[in-house]
């Protein structure tokens, strides 16, 4: 069980970074897959509660409720990280647009003034 937890913990960090920071097609597709898997897991949990008990037992988590709490925390952390990253990327792009607009208007204004 400890080995299983260790593997999960080690796998989570790079997966988290990839999911949160990735901007390519692959990262986008994987985010979709993770979202679908999450929704699927919720549906299965509601339909077959025993499966969660089985999964919790396999992962060495004491109860199925604990497992659900852990999964929720991981999902929310990933989501928050993704949203923050997305905002920062948008902010960067907006900054570039503002910078470029200012440079162009400055250059145009100067050329209209006839290089005084």
């Amino acid at each position, binding site marked *: 069980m400890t080995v299983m937890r260790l593997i999960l913990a080690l796998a989570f960090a790079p997966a988290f970074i990839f999911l949160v920071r990735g901007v390519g097609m692959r990262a986008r597709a994987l985010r979709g897959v993770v979202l679908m898997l999450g929704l699927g897991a919720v549906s299965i949990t509601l339909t077959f509660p025993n499966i969660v008990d089985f999964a919790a037992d396999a992962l060495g988590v004491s109860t199925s409720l604990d497992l659900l709490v852990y999964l929720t925390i991981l999902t929310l952390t990933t989501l928050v990280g993704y949203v923050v990253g997305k905002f920062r990327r948008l902010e960067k792009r*907006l900054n570039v647009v503002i*910078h470029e607009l*200012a440079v162009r208007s400055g250059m145009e204004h100067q050329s209209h003034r006839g290089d005084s």
Partner: protein
Amino acid sequence: MNTDYWDTIAESTVCIVPVYNEAAVVSEVVDSLRQVFPHILCIDDGSSDGSGLLARKSGARVVTHVLNIGQGGALQTGFSIVSRENRYSFVVTFDADGQHSPSDAKRLVLALVASDAEIVFGSRFLETSSREIPLVKRVVLKGLVKFNQYVTDVRLSDAHNGLRAIRVDSLPSLSFTHYGMAHATEIVSKSLQANLCIKEIPMNVRYTAYSRKKGQSIFNSINILFDFLWR
């Protein structure tokens, strides 16, 4: 000093002044600068108090950011314009809060012209000028100096001073990505990467109640740290 000699240098020098909500002092700053430098380029970084208009009325050329993006972004805009126009040989970066003196800016440009340096930084910590810096600010700035030395491996005595003189042909090597206050550290690290020759000369800072209020606080230094580490 020969006046003609300075006039020739001043004609090929442009002062870039990033301005953000400095209506209280910007006219005075531009007026005092214009007594030494004929070309002033103010970058109004999305001010909401009419600072840009006041700077223009005082005789500066003003370029406006439609939104506030930070002092680094304003300087980057100024650098881009100066590089593309190809009219000037030297650039001075000058804070708009009135704490710098135009005569110090002139000394920086003269030091740049007289030496092989590509960038001359003004330093508040050389000679005795640092005694005038408020204690808390001194501690914050010293912390930033240490951080700068750690990140860039360049031993400068003052890391986040807005007064610099730069050769225009060095500007392409200094194109920075940090649009906030972390640009000061990035300028130093880019200079190192581009093997630019750096020089520091002492300067005085005039701390008024206004500049103390607007200056960098401890919180801002934390922001700089996070800005630099995050990207």
